[in-house]
């Protein structure tokens, strides 16, 4: 019956399997049933990872599987259609690891004829994968090893004489197996979290270069433009588009300061007195060259910045909010040029700026407490705000030099190694550093951080509507009956409902290969738009209920992956500082995160057992995942009824 069904639009229709050990590249068809059940991106990687790695897989060995996946909308005219997902078992968290990025690489992979790349094994010597219009081969990368990400991209383009090639690669950090190494594509777009750059490094895979001239077929061309024009109109009419075009996310520094959610001094506080010096307005006024859009994006939040002179001179990608807060306020650093430059070299080395800044700020707090001394750091002064030390440590982490070698393990492992009571200053969940979202100022963000499948993360649920003033949208989306409590950022009530719904929706967004900005704030585009666009693009009319269930399925799949690794309710936690120490100052003064109360509500919404966070059998049946139950049993995991 499958073979008689018409070919799906939107998808390229092929997986690419790459065995680094044998040096083999093999295309295999994308099955229709698989495509429609898991949709793409996050859905694809979740299922493939569940099936192919498990508790015995060490993340940095050849047995780990590294997967790039695009979605049905990647490379189409959906208003922000640039995204891809990359995933593996994470060397930072030891559980489900995924990361997302934009740019032009994901669309080009589809033009080159593939929806996914599934990499196993380890090459004998440094190699890069070259995918040229449906044909893939591994090429020698000895001359690329040791190069930064921008040099790598330039050299590959020159070698093939084609500046329109698209490259996804690692810098020195990934080669040196830094546990929070990023994968960088299109010079400065980062799939940063989960340490997947180190997985690439462990496979001796330096880069994946792609180009192609194949069609992304559109199933209903007669109706396509009508639907797309409406989506574009909505996006251009949204007030957030003008703001994104002007500031990107850089002005979140000002907005987060206003509600006390800008982490400073290793999350001791949610306000930073010098915030104006590192603000979006300061970047725009003094350093902005121009905004730049990723593929088919109308909001153009990417930007290019220029520091003309001095030790921090550079021209390239601008930091966005997360980098400003991680390398700035979090380290007590108000030197904006050092933040811009620190972000730039993090891109060159291929480092996650969030974990980099958070790990350095952990060390700074331990220094202030006298638990880390010059003897540990090799003489580097770690006083708050010492921007020269921040920049120096970025170099040392990427190269694993001196004290940088300890920090390259991430703050959790570094604290385990150093001990002396430094463990209590690690701001993490499941060993991944918490992003720039001080959760005492917004309770939903605290819950989202604790439940995210890849460890501490703001994007897995991305609850933003309760930040301030979206009551109307909140009422429509989650139900009027939950107002006003659900819209109050400081009230823990109904946040389990909000985070559950958001996680499901985010899973769909990341599976389709589109951006969260247009879909989550406030949303501009929502389920009905996805239904319409999926019909004309792929040619299959699915309902909103179908997508909602598919989102739940993907979240449950991530959960059972982590359950198999031993994750339970006890691990869905936050540092004691955030749940027990009241915020010391600012608009959210006196607040703590009431995590237990919110978790109860969340598990109840999910259909997971309250005591340990295990999905129930009936939940897995409901989301059509009963096939994982026997596998869990073989691992000694008996799910509750």
């Amino acid at each position, binding site marked *: 019956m499958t073979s008689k069904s018409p070919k799906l639009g939107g998808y390229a229709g092929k997986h690419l399997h790459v065995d680094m050990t044998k040096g083999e590249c093999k295309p295999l068809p994308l099955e229709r049933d698989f495509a429609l059940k898991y949709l793409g991106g996050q859905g694809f990687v979740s299922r493939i990872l569940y099936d192919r790695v498990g508790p015995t897989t060490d993340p940095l060995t050849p047995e780990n599987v590294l997967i790039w996946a695009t979605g049905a909308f990647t*490379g*189409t*005219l959906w208003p922000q259609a640039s995204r891809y997902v990359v995933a593996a078992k994470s060397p930072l968290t030891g559980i489900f690891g995924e990361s997302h990025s934009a740019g*032009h690489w994901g669309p080009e992979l589809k*033009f080159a004829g593939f929806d996914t790349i599934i990499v196993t094994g380890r090459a004998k010597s440094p190699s890069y994968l070259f995918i040229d219009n449906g044909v893939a081969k591994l090429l020698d990368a000895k001359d690329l090893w040791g190069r*930064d990400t921008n040099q790598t991209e330039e050299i590959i383009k020159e070698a093939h004489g084609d*500046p329109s090639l698209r490259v996804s690669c690692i810098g020195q950090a990934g080669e040196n197996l830094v546990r929070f190494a990023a994968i960088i594509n299109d*010079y400065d777009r980062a799939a940063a979290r989960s340490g997947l750059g180190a997985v690439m490094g462990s496979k001796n895979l330096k880069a994946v270069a792609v180009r*192609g*001239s*194949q*069609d*992304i*077929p*559109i199933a209903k*061309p007669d109706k*396509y*433009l009508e639907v797309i024009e409406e989506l*574009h109109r909505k996006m*251009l009419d949204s007030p957030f588009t003008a703001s994104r075009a002007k500031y990107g996310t850089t002005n979140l520094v000002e907005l987060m300061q206003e509600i006390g959610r800008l982490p400073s001094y290793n999350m001791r506080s949610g306000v930073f007195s010098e915030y104006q010096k590192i603000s979006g307005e300061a970047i725009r006024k003094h350093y902005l*060259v*121009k*905004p*730049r*859009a*990723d*593929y*088919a*994006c*109308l909001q*153009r939040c990417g930007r*290019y910045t*220029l*520091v*003309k002179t001095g*030790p921090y*001179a*550079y*021209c*390239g990608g601008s930091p966005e909010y997360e980098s400003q807060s991680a390398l700035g306020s979090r380290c007590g650093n108000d030197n904006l040029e050092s933040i811009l430059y620190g972000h730039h*070299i993090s891109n*060159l*080395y291929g480092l996650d700026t969030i974990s980099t800044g958070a790990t350095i700020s952990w060390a700074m707090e331990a220094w202030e407490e006298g638990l880390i001394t010059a003897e540990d750091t090799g003489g580097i002064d770690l006083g708050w705000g010492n921007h020269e030390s921040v920049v120096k440590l970025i*170099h040392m982490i990427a*190269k694993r030099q001196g004290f940088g070698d300890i920090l390259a393990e991430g703050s959790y492992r570094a604290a385990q190694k150093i001990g002396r009571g430094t463990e209590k200053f690690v701001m993490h969940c499941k060993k991944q550093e918490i992003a720039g979202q001080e959760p005492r100022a917004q309770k939903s963000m605290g819950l989202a951080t604790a439940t995210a499948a890849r460890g501490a993360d703001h994007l897995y649920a991305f609850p933003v509507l309760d930040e301030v003033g979206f009551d109307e949208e909140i009422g429509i989306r989650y139900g009027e009956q939950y107002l006003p409590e659900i819209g109050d950022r400081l009230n823990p009530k109904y946040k389990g409902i909000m985070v559950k719904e958001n996680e499901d929706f985010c899973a769909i967004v990341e599976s389709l290969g589109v951006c969260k900005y247009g879909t989550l704030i406030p949303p501009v585009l929502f389920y009905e738009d996805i239904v319409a666009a999926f019909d004309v693009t792929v040619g299959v009319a699915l309902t909103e209920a179908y997508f909602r269930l598919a989102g739940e399925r993907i979240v449950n799949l991530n959960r059972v992956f982590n359950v198999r690794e031993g994750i339970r309710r006890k691990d869905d936690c936050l540092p004691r500082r955030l749940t027990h120490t009241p915020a010391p100052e600012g608009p959210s003064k006196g607040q703590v995160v009431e995590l237990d109360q919110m978790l109860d509500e969340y598990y109840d919404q999910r259909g997971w057992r309250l005591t340990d966070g295990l999905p129930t059998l009936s939940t897995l049946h409901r989301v059509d995942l009963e096939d994982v139950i026997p596998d869990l049993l073989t691992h000694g995991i008996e799910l509750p009824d």
Partner: protein
Amino acid sequence: MCVGCRICEAICSFHWEKTLNPKKARNRVRRVDPGLDIVVACRNCNQAWCIEACPEEALYKNRQGIIMVNSKKCRGCGACVEACPFGAIFIHPETQKAIKCVTCGFCTKYCPVNTLRILTEEELATLKQQKVIQAECRNLLDELRVEEESLEGEQ
């Protein structure tokens, strides 16, 4: 100023071919510097080097002054691609014939930053935009020439 989103490429391929494929687009967005993107489309030069280069006489100017490809004559040798100083004419990946922008203006409707416009020579001159644009580009390029310290210096 172009932000490099490439919607014009995708919409062009869809307009002419009912599919999404930038390599079938009649225009291209080129990143010419870290901070500069330019949309390349045929400007229908007065002295059209592509026409002079074509050994098959497949290229000609129509009555509106637009350079056209006679695909019956075109053999896809690529001489026009070599000759065009702007990189504004391409070989279609399937038909293997030359394709180029014929100034239909369809893409201009979808440009999110209204960078794309169809202007006559006179309009361009009247608006004095050419000078302004050139000056802007010159300034920008000068600004962008920063001496960047390489990471090797830190070792």
